[in-house]
Every structure is written in structure tokens, then in C-alpha cells.
């Protein structure tokens, strides 16, 4: 059991708020000349409460209050009871990341980190529980109890700012319902591993199918490669172990070197012959034609023609004789050299093949260098493919095994849910009781199911339906009914701190609000010491109901704090900082 007693600060920056058992209202009132009840500091009061309850400074709006409004030397205090212990939690504005805790007036935690403070408070809370009960952290425990206003009360499980996309955490809910958190955590872990493994299998498959259409094709190629590499390897090994290998090896290397040189020369000769052949076929051009041509130039260009007819004729003769010498001498010479070279290459090539065949029977190793080269390439391809297929096979196997583990554990959880049906049913009964009081009927349902789907990241589903649910304000009522049922149900209140804070939840229709408030009042009257419920409310939301006497009690009797535009929580109007204080 946890009870808030008093929220205050030193120096005093706001009026201390004293909380009682049962219903507590933080009220936004109208003031003279101002009918507005928003922005008077109700949520900020809850933020200060949360600040003392170890909310992360990076998430807290307290650190967004400007220094000129709130002295940084201010320390915020919260007096609370955990069972019979009286505790004071102190957190300063200047050092929001450290916490001091007094127990029955004695300083127990002195300027320690939030984690250490959370562990201490968690231990205090859990000391009343048997050792075998799986514990959750203190802050974890409080998440569904003081939901973040920015969760928009859309979902019963999700308690955090919707913009932060924090995954749903079922642990506190399971804890309140006395369900197996350990098994839940194990299944979550298996699902995480399975997700990672599935991603790995998909990536590896992509790698394989980038070269082959299907994994089976790649596996077939692996077998083929293994066969090829093995054959080449055997041949090379045979070649190396052959007695004559040593002596023939030198000859082979020499022959390869000679052949290589000759092939370079062969290439050069072919190029030169091609060049000569690229010149046009010779033609007979008479001296008369040259004379006519020259005269044309002379007629057209006059003195620009620098050369004489005789010089042009000599120029033509020079080209003619070069062409003739190429055709008659060089071309013939080159062709003859090429023929003899071809013969030589053919002879050496035969000699090379003959030597290789001496060792290999000419079956595989037509060329030693090429064969070793092919062997190395194929071997590398084989190793790469084998490695990726091995990884794929291993990951597939592990994925299957994880899937089996997940299936089995989910079956275990199903069995566990069956064992807990009585308690779950009792919880549902409380929900129906609240639903009947507020919505006027029992047209609601609560159940817990497991989902075993490859796509679902969460394997649990809290199936909670109420009358006409789905709309924005009905979803808020769902959250209210669920949270209240956790607080009141016999099957959940054993583990529940019996404490609930609802800030800005009641943006609902008037009838639901009226019935909810009357229900809360009745609970508070009938079971005053059994729970503590804190809510924020604006006067204008209940004004008409009060005028019509629909509210069965005096709101002010439960108001622990009242704020107006003229008398705000922090006394002054200000704008929050856009960046957090360092």
C-alpha cells in the first residue's frame, strides 16, 4: 500500500497539498473576471508529484520552468507512506538527477541516483511480498498508476507519451493481475531473438538469391562446384606426386615463357600487316593528271601555292615508293615471319600439350597455370557459397528451434491463463460492476488472450470491450474503468499499491462524468481507507451538474487544492522553456 500524504517545497513556492485516503480532487476554479479554468497549474501539481516519484528529468515539465519563476535552490518534497513507514522523498531543482529519502525522519538515501532511490523504494514496497514473486521496478510499478497525460488515455496498456513510441509494457499489469511475469519476459526475449534471427535469415537469403533464383539452386550449384573442385584438385595432386613432375615442371615453365614471348611477337606482326593492308590499293596516276591537278590549285589559289609542279610530282613519288616498298618488301617479309612464327608456336604448343598429357593424360590439365588459376577461383567461389549456405542453414535451424520454443512457451502461458481464470473472471466482474454503475449496463467484456503470429511483436492481448467503445471519449472511460478495477478488484488489489492518479482524464460526456464522480464518492464513503484516488477537474465541467443537484456530494469537500487564473499553483503566469535546463 502506498499513500501520498503531502506535497510541498522549501522554500515555499506553492501551497502545500495534503492528500487524504479515498477521493482527492485538484480543482481548477473560475476566478473573478475570468471564467477560464485551464492553465491554472493542475497538471503542474501532478508533475511535481511525479518529480518526487522519480520521473526522469528529461521527461519532466518541472525542468522547463524558468529560473526566474522557480528558484533553482528549491527542493520539492513528497511525504508518503509505504505500508507503515513514513517516508519523505526530496528532489532539488538544481540537481534533478539525485534524490534524498528520509525514513521515519532519518536520512536513508542521501543525494543518490534515481536508480538507487528507485531500488530502495521498490525494496520497501516488495518486502511484504513472498520472495518467489517476480519484482518490477518502482517506476515500472507506478507507470499505469500515474499515466502520462500525453498517453491521451487511448489504450489500457500504453501509459507513455504517444509521440515517444515507447513499446507497451505489460509487466505492471501482469503484476497486478498476479500473472507470471517471468514467463512473459522469457517469451518476450524469445520473440526478440526470433525477430533478429528472421531478419538474419531474410538478409542471408537475399545474399544467396542475388546470384541464384532460389536457395535450392544455390545448393545445387554448391554440389556441382564441390565436384568440379574435387576433380581438379585430384588431378593437380596427381600431377604433383608424379615422379616425372619435377623434371617436366621446369620444361613446362620454360615452354610457357617462350610461348608467351612468341605470342606477343605474333600479335605485333598481325597488327603491322593489318596497318599496311589499311592503305588503299595502289593506282596508276599519270604525270598529266598531276599537272592538271597542280594547275587547278594554281588557278584557284595563285601565289598561295608555294611548291612547284616538279616538287608536287616528287612528293607523289615519295609516297608511291614508300607504298611500293611496303607492299613489295615489308609486307612480304612480315607475312613470311608470321607464317614461320605460327608454325613455331604450333610446334611448341604441341610439345607443351604432350608434356602435360604425360602427367595428366590430357583429361583436365590442358594448361598448368590456367588450371591452378581455375582451381583457385572455383575453390574461392565454393568457399564463399558454402559459408553463406552454412550460415543460412544454421540460422534456419535456429529460427525453427526458436519458433518451437516460442510456441511451447505460449502454450505454457495459455495454460497459466487457464489456471488463473477465476482471478481474471473476478477482475472482469469488478469491471462489469463499475461499468454498470457508470454506463448503466453490463455490456462489457474483459479477457486475456495469447496471439501466436509471426508478425505480431506482442504475444499478449488484453481484450477489453465496453458499451459503444471506439470513440475518443469512450476510450478514456475504458482506461478509467480498467484502472479503477485494478484498484478495487479483490483479485488485483493484493499487489496494487491501492493508489491512482488521473490527470485530465475526464474529458468525457456529462453523464459519464456525473456517474463516475458519484461512483468514486460512494467508494470513498464506503471504503475510505482502502484506496487513494487523485484526479484533476475543472469547475466548469461540473457546474451545471451541481446546479441540477446531480452530484451527490460537495465537490469542495474532496478538493485538496484549488487553483484559479488569479491564484495559480506557482502563483505566477509564465511560459515553459523550449529547452531543458542543464
Amino acid at each position, binding site marked *: 500500500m502506498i499513500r501520498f500524504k503531502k506535497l510541498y517545497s522549501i522554500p515555499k513556492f506553492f501551497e502545500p497539498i495534503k492528500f487524504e485516503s479515498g477521493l482527492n480532487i485538484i480543482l481548477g476554479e473560475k476566478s473573478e473576471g475570468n471564467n477560464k479554468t485551464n492553465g491554472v497549474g493542475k497538471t503542474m501539481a501532478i508533475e511535481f508529484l511525479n518529480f518526487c516519484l522519480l520521473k526522469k528529468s528529461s521527461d519532466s515539465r518541472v525542468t522547463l520552468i524558468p529560473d526566474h519563476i522557480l528558484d533553482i535552490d528549491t527542493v520539492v518534497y513528497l511525504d508518503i507512506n509505504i505500508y507503515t513507514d513514513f517516508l519523505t522523498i526530496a528532489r532539488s531543482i538544481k540537481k534533478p538527477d539525485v534524490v534524498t529519502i528520509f525514513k521515519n525522519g532519518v536520512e536513508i538515501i542521501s543525494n543518490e541516483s534515481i536508480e538507487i532511490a528507485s531500488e530502495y523504494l521498490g525494496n520497501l514496497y516488495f518486502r511484504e511480498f513472498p520472495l518467489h514473486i517476480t519484482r518490477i521496478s518502482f517506476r515500472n510499478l507506478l507507470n499505469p498508476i500515474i499515466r502520462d497525460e500525453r498517453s491521451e488515455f487511448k489504450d489500457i496498456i500504453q501509459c507513455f507519451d504517444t509521440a515517444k513510441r515507447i513499446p507497451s509494457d505489460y509487466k505492471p499489469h501482469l503484476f497486478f493481475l498476479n500473472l507470471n511475469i517471468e514467463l512473459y519476459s522469457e517469451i518476450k526475449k524469445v520473440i526478440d531473438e526470433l525477430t533478429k534471427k528472421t531478419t538474419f535469415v531474410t538478409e542471408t537469403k537475399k545474399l544467396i538469391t542475388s546470384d541464384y533464383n532460389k536457395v535450392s539452386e544455390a545448393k545445387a550449384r554448391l554440389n556441382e562446384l564441390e565436384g568440379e573442385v574435387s576433380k581438379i584438385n585430384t588431378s593437380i595432386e596427381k600431377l604433383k606426386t608424379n615422379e616425372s613432375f619435377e623434371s617436366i615442371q621446369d620444361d613446362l615453365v620454360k615452354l610457357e615463357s617462350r610461348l608467351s614471348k612468341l605470342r606477343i611477337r605474333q600479335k605485333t606482326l598481325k597488327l603491322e600487316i593489318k596497318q599496311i593492308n589499311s592503305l588503299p590499293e595502289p593506282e596508276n596516276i599519270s604525270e598529266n593528271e598531276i599537272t592538271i591537278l597542280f594547275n*587547278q*590549285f594554281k588557278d584557284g589559289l595563285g601565289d598561295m601555292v608555294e611548291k612547284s609542279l616538279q616538287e608536287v610530282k616528287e612528293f607523289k613519288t615519295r609516297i608511291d615508293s614508300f607504298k611500293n616498298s611496303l607492299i613489295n618488301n615489308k609486307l612480304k617479309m612480315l607475312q613470311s615471319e608470321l607464317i614461320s612464327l605460327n608454325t613455331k608456336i604450333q610446334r611448341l604448343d604441341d610439345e607443351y600439350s604432350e608434356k602435360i598429357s604425360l602427367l595428366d593424360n590430357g583429361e583436365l590439365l590442358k594448361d598448368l597455370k590456367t588450371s591452378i588459376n581455375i582451381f583457385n577461383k572455383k575453390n574461392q567461389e565454393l568457399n564463399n557459397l558454402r559459408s553463406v549456405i552454412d550460415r543460412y542453414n544454421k540460422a534456419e535451424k535456429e529460427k525453427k528451434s526458436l519458433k518451437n520454443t516460442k510456441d511451447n512457451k505460449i502454450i505454457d502461458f495459455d495454460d497459466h491463463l487457464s489456471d488463473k481464470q477465476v482471478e481474471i473472471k473476478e477482475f472482469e466482474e469488478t469491471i462489469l460492476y463499475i461499468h454498470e454503475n457508470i454506463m448503466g449496463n453490463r455490456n462489457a467484456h474483459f479477457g486475456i488472450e495469447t496471439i501466436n503470429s509471426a508478425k505480431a511483436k506482442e504475444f499478449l492481448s488484453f481484450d477489453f470491450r465496453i458499451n459503444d467503445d471506439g470513440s475518443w471519449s469512450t476510450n478514456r472511460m475504458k482506461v478509467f474503468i480498467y484502472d479503477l478495477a485494478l484498484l478495487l478488484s479483490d483479485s488485483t488489489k493484493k499487489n496494487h499499491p491501492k493508489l491512482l492518479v488521473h490527470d485530465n482524464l475526464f474529458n468525457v460526456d456529462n453523464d459519464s462524468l456525473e456517474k463516475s464522480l458519484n461512483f468514486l464518492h460512494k467508494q470513498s464513503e464506503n471504503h475510505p481507507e482502502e484506496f487513494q484516488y487523485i484526479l484533476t477537474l475543472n469547475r466548469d465541467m461540473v457546474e451545471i451538474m451541481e446546479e441540477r443537484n446531480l452530484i451527490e456530494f460537495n465537490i469542495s469537500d474532496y478538493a485538496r487544492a484549488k487553483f484559479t487564473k488569479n491564484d495559480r499553483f506557482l502563483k505566477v503566469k509564465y511560459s515553459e522553456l523550449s529547452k531543458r535546463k542543464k
Partner: protein
Amino acid sequence: MLLSKDENIKTSSVYVASIILKMFRKTRLKKLTIFEVAEELKKYDIVHYRQVIFGLSFLYSTGVVDFKEPYIYIIK
């Protein structure tokens, strides 16, 4: 007249000469082998020995090029 009225301009000595000069300009070289010149001219359908000789003679007579086997030189 540099061209006679019944002569095809695309095979005329002046046109051939212009292609050769373009080749020098494009390669920015001072000398090209006669093989390279002949190979380039083929692209313009200049495939006869006569056409090549006439084009080169035009360039020589105006003192633009000279020949020293196997190169055609630019001298201007």
C-alpha cells in the same frame, strides 16, 4: 578553279585535305602515320589511293604538310 563543275565535292582534293587537317586539329599532334590518315579517311568513304594522294598533294603544294615515311608532318 579548285573544283571542276562535274567533280564530286565529297571526294575532291580540297575536301580530303580538310578532313586530314581536322584530324591534326583533333589529335593535337604534329605528325600522324599515313596508315592512321588512311584509316580515318575510310570513315568518310575516301577509299581510293588517287583521292588520298590528291588530298595530300593539295596540302603539300600549299606548304602545309610534308611526308617522311611513314609520317605526314604539319609544317605550318
